[in-house]
């Protein structure tokens, strides 16, 4: 089994991640890519600046991957999240999972992205075509409601 995670400030090399998780023992590989889309909430997006609580984000992403590997018995898992200024279409997160069987591969991949959305301390400031920008609460959950989950 291999598990690797990274918070990076460079383009994510999708083909390299696929090669990293590939081996003959596994019948299924699932790759999830998150990328910058051109419209959000009815506003035309020009790009997104991602920032993080760096060391904690590294630790949380590694913890999510470990929990996933233990729970779903994945063979190989690689997850990278990118920070910095991203343009439309750029990959912000990639999750590659290899497993002997497809059902578990899909479930493991979904687990990682949902936990990232829930607890990875990363923020995005969306820039719009009209020249304005805003911090995004992607999950759309009222903040105090979210805090209660930890108490």
């Amino acid at each position, binding site marked *: 089994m291999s598990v690797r995670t990274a918070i990076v400030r460079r383009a994510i090399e999708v083909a390299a991640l696929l090669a990293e998780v590939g081996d003959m023992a596994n019948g299924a590989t699932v790759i999830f890519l*998150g990328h910058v889309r051109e419209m959000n909430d009815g506003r035309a997006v020009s790009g997104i600046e*991602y*920032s*993080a*609580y760096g*060391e*904690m*984000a590294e*630790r949380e992403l590694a913890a999510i991957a470990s929990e996933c590997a233990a729970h779903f018995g994945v063979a190989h898992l690689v997850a990278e*999240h990118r920070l910095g200024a991203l343009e439309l279409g750029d990959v*912000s*997160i990639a999750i590659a999972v290899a497993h002997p069987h497809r059902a578990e591969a899909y479930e493991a991949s979904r687990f990682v*992205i949902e936990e*990232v*959305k*829930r*607890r*990875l*301390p*990363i*923020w*995005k*400031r969306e820039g719009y075509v009209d020249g304005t920008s805003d*911090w*995004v*609460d*992607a*999950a759309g*959950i009222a*903040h*105090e409601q*979210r*805090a*209660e989950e*930890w*108490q």
Partner: protein
Amino acid sequence: MTVTALLFASYADALGSDRLELTLAGDTTVRDVVDRLRAMPGGSSLPAAPLVAVNQTYASSDQRVVSGDEVAIIPPVAGG
């Protein structure tokens, strides 16, 4: 005692800083640190009970903090 408060994203914008050294009385909790920040100029836009991490681990509002702790106030996360 002194703790380091870390602020990110919209919270850093609101307080005009991403890192503040706070001097507090002993026997202090996460809630006390948040209350101190909310009393500062710009601090009123922080929620009363934000998500907080102490030394990079999510913490409850009644968790004790000790001198030297790093107390991060976490805005709604938006990774992915």
